[in-house]
């Protein structure tokens, strides 16, 4: 009985540690693959700007952009060419925008909330292929 209890304790210990770490990343990996086309990190220009600054989406297919504001200030998102915008993305929050590109080319996107003195430089490009 003691041996069984010890085995259960070790299994619980492994689940709490290694299991949790693996589980979290496997679940998130699968979720992103299923639900999002690209992950976009929002940072003001002096802290790294949009990351990636440039990303590709396929023509004619719905693109889901997963925007994470990892800063302590609010950001916004706008892709004027396709009439796409997000609400104010507050510090630490996540927002998803969807659109279906109907033309090829390079199109700029911007931050729409005054986030810093360099706010006007917070821009990137979407490449539709």
């Amino acid at each position, binding site marked *: 009985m*003691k*041996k069984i*209890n*010890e085995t*259960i*304790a*070790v299994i*619980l*210990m492994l*689940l*709490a*540690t290694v299991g*949790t*770490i693996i589980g*979290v990343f496997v679940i*998130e990996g699968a*979720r992103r693959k299923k639900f999002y086309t690209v992950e976009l990190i929002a940072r003001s220009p002096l802290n790294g700007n949009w990351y990636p600054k440039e990303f590709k989406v396929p023509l004619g297919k719905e693109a889901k952009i*997963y925007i*994470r*504001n*990892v*800063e*302590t200030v609010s950001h916004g998102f706008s892709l004027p060419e396709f009439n796409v915008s997000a609400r104010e993305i507050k*510090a*630490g*929050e*996540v927002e*998803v925008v969807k659109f279906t590109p109907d033309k090829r080319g390079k199109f700029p996107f911007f931050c729409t909330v005054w986030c810093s003195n360099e706010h006007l430089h917070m821009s990137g490009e979407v490449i539709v292929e």
Partner: protein
Amino acid sequence: MADKLFGLIDLNWRFELTKFKLIRNLFKSRWFPLLAIIFNLFIFVIILISGLIGGFSAGNYNFGIMIVWILWWVMLMFILVPIFSRAWCLMCPFPVFSDWLQRGALFVVTGLKLKGLGLKWPKALKNMWVMNILFLVTTFFSGFFTVRPLATFILLGGIILLAFLIGLVFEKRSFCLYVCPVSGFQGLYSQFAMAEVRRKDPEICKNHKVKTCYVGNECGYGCPWMLTPFNFTKNTYCGMCLECFKSCPHDNMAFNLRPPGVDLLVDEKRGLDEAWKAFIMLGIAMVFFLTMQGPWGFLKDWVRGTSLKGYLTFISLHTAFSLLIVPAIFLVFSYLSKSFSGAKEVSLKKIFTNFSYTLVPLGLGVWIAFSVGIVLPNGSYILHIISDPFAWGWNLFGTRSVPWTPVFTGALGHLQGAVLIVFYLFSLAYGARLSRQTYPTEEQAKRGWIPILIFLTLATLAFLWLYIG
């Protein structure tokens, strides 16, 4: 005649919770507190992941920062320490890896010989000084821990690693007893707690020649905190691991409820290390209030290291205030106490040390009041982060969109003031008794108490001014 606290509660009153079979069986089971430790380990793994992923991002939507500094800290100061003593140590996951390594098992009792080098902790460091310094140094980075997830990751990761390494080299829970920065203040303030682990019948322990609570047996390990549970008289160093409940063949250990603060009157192992812990905690509480909850922006800039000069100024002033100025002021009042009492035969060190315990209730009150100032404005973030612990857009419990909602902040200062006054009264109640312990005659005790009473009143007024202004 019974000595009654505020004329109401007999200081000798005890209510044994372990007389209930359910609680006694729980305490004797090897699954407890192991399951609680494993659960907390799971939470801390999530905290560490969120801290690492969060990096330099916003702290207010970070699981690690919110759970550690809003929920855990507040629970510690509100409930765990003042009511249940070192109940956090009971379920703390930090030393679980070194325990596992030393024992070679998680659940079963493997034998009396533990693995690891098992060196004895240096005699000169068998006190609270290392913990005092480590806790003070930790607070140098307070401006980062509460806003940068990575800083919290480094702190907690560092503590877990240090606990493991010390467990490899030194015997049993040397880390918890002499190093852990969280352990020191819990030990000090647990003297105020409303619960205790004690033996029931001293005669049973006296006649039990093999002290299994100390050396262990097939049912439980010998006290991991290297104490002698058969003659516990105060909570300070008991980590409530409950091994003594398991190893006692006579079921002679009890978990009692009691009036708050009775340990303050136990004249055992009183020393300057514990006195300084009380000063440091009071000093840190004031510095934290000024820098975190006060209106002075330049202080916040100093603490957050926006300039090196400002940051070094903060560290210097903070260290000088907590380590030197507060004790120095108290020394002056202790000297006045000696002079007023007229008791030349009582040493200044004894007066200084004994009366430093009057700062335990006051200090705890100050920290509870500080915690009120954390939880009321920021508590609502908890609802967000439990649904989205990694800021990945998860919504586990449907509470991700709950906005930041400060609660009762209009009454915050008055709530803090009320808490402080309650604990000030406890300080007075025990201060008068400590004075009678310190001085040989009632008359000397009355006169010697006056300067300390003035110090406690001035300290309370200073905090009240900060809270209510």
